[in-house]
């Protein structure tokens, strides 16, 4: 029987909606904040900003390459531009522009990709961004963020604006479980330990943080003490919290709604191998594109649930 943690995990806002709300607040505080969108403002939730600050909203039409370039130009002109679209479009179509006009000259551009992962659901794999974290991390100088809920998204959008340099923020379409209470502090590059544990550490990001907490509750009922860590910053990684988890629990499961070939897991494994090598397992998407279905059906089918995280933890413990 699953023990209870202090987390209720009630469904709250989707992180894309939290992003839209935070953007309006940011726009009120800072007149240098400018937003660009590529005909998806009702879906990315930049429409709220567009309504309140029409003069600071640039509709770029369905032209992501141009949008990213304009964003970089606005940044060079002293603005704090947030360019937004579905993650798969802005990161894939705009990648060359992110590389040459944002990363390479270290421009103060903020990129927010919504509808990431497979939890976009019915729209299917052409719209599913399952490689965005890997692509964003491959850009030198980029900060890469993947907030799990409304409170963390709000805080990290404000932190992005305050940070000088290119930032990629990953947001989701599906409603996300509330994890944090308002007032929780977030620092770019600092992970947060959510559940204390000594047998195994579940390191998760984005939508998988709530699944990891549920998995820890299940494991606790089996007498397994699982630590849960939210790595909301994929780059730069919090090396200390990873090394500590490796040293103190001796087993790590990394959980992400992303291709395992190029996401958080391989990055954490690099830090573990450089610090305190330990047994590791990985929960994520394995070398495939998904399909159309409801988000819940997809998370079940592609093995991104609490039960999959718990199973990976048992496997890790058996190898310890």
């Amino acid at each position, binding site marked *: 029987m699953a023990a209870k943690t202090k987390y209720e995990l009630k469904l709250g806002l989707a992180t894309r909606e939290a992003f839209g709300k935070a953007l309006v607040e940011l726009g009120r505080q800072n007149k240098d904040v400018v937003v660009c969108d590529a005909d998806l403002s009702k879906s990315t939730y930049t429409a709220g900003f567009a309504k309140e600050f029409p003069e600071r909203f640039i509709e770029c039409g369905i032209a992501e390459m141009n949008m990213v370039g304009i964003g970089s130009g606005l940044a*060079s002109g002293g603005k704090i531009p947030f360019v937004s679209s579905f993650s798969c479009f802005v990161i894939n179509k705009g990648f060359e522009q992110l590389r040459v006009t944002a990363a390479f000259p270290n421009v103060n551009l903020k990129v927010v990709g919504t509808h990431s992962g497979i939890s976009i659901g019915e729209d299917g794999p052409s719209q599913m961004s399952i490689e965005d974290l890997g692509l964003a991390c491959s850009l030198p100088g980029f900060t890469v963020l993947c907030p799990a809920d409304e409170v963390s998204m709000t805080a990290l959008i404000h932190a992005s604006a305050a940070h000088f340099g290119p930032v990629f923020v990953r947001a989701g379409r599906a409603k996300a479980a509330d994890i944090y209470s308002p007032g929780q502090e977030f620092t770019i590059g600092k992970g947060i330990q959510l559940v204390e544990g000594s047998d195994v550490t579940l390191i998760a990001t984005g939508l998988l943080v709530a699944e990891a907490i549920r998995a820890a509750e299940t494991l606790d009922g089996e007498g397994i003490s699982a630590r849960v860590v939210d790595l909301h910053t994929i780059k730069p990684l919090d090396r200390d919290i990873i090394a500590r988890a490796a040293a103190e629990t001796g087993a790590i499961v990394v959980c992400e709604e992303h291709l395992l070939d190029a996401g958080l897991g391989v990055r954490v494994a690099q830090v573990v191998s450089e610090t305190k090598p330990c047994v590791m397992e990985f929960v994520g998407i394995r070398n495939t594109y998904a399909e159309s279905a409801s988000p819940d059906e997809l998370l079940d089918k592609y093995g991104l649930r609490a039960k999959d995280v718990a199973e990976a933890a048992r496997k890790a413990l058996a190898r310890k």
Partner: protein
Amino acid sequence: MTKTSNVEELRAICRQIRRDIITMITAAKSGHPGGSLSAVEIVTTLFFDVMKHDPANPKWVDRDRFILSKGHACPVLYSAFAELGYTPKDQLNTLRKLGSIYQGHPDVRFIPALEASTGSLGQGLSLGIGMALAAKLNGSPSRTFVVLGDGEVQEGQIWEAAMLAPFHKVDNLVCIVDYNKIQLDGFVRDILDISPLAEKWRAFGWHAIELDGHDIPALQSAFAEAAEVKGKPTVLIANTIKGKGVSFMENNPKFHGVAPTEKEMALALQEIG
């Protein structure tokens, strides 16, 4: 060198810039002489006459912005920068060498006075739109100038940008197409013809001016005209000659991306005078 509107003085500067281009590319043993030489009058007229900028204060917020989207022609820009005092003239011949600020393509990490790192074609116009929009939002009189190559307009992103700028009335932006008719693999008309060019830009909503891109008074009056056009951006279709000023390089596709030999350099410098 100081700024001037005097055509003879500008022509003298052009000769100096052509000498610098030939000398630095020869020293580097690689680079792009043809497309650097075709843009000499465009760059000289802008930097030495039209644009408001201050080498003593390169980050002056209200300065005009210049983006060399055809980044491979950077020797023309490096020479102008050096002649203006933005960068050291005695280092021009370190072009493309380890540790040089004169990188193979413009790189703001090495020369902060550059407005953009370019070299991957097709991206400068979007950046220029962003800078021009930022100037408008900032209430700044700053204007933005973007030089494109002719082969470069084959890039799809150029037309995304071309569609957006008139729609958003970005009238503090001037685009100059260095239409020298030659790209790496040969003549543009044989690789992927882009004509009729002015008609394409007009159809996208631009104020288009066709001119001889080596005619300094024509460039001066076109830039003055562009400054008066409101509600839409201006494009100059500058008909130029690849390799202009060196007879054996003119209209010769070979000199798109091949450095002159020492012997060719001597001949070229003699011709330029």
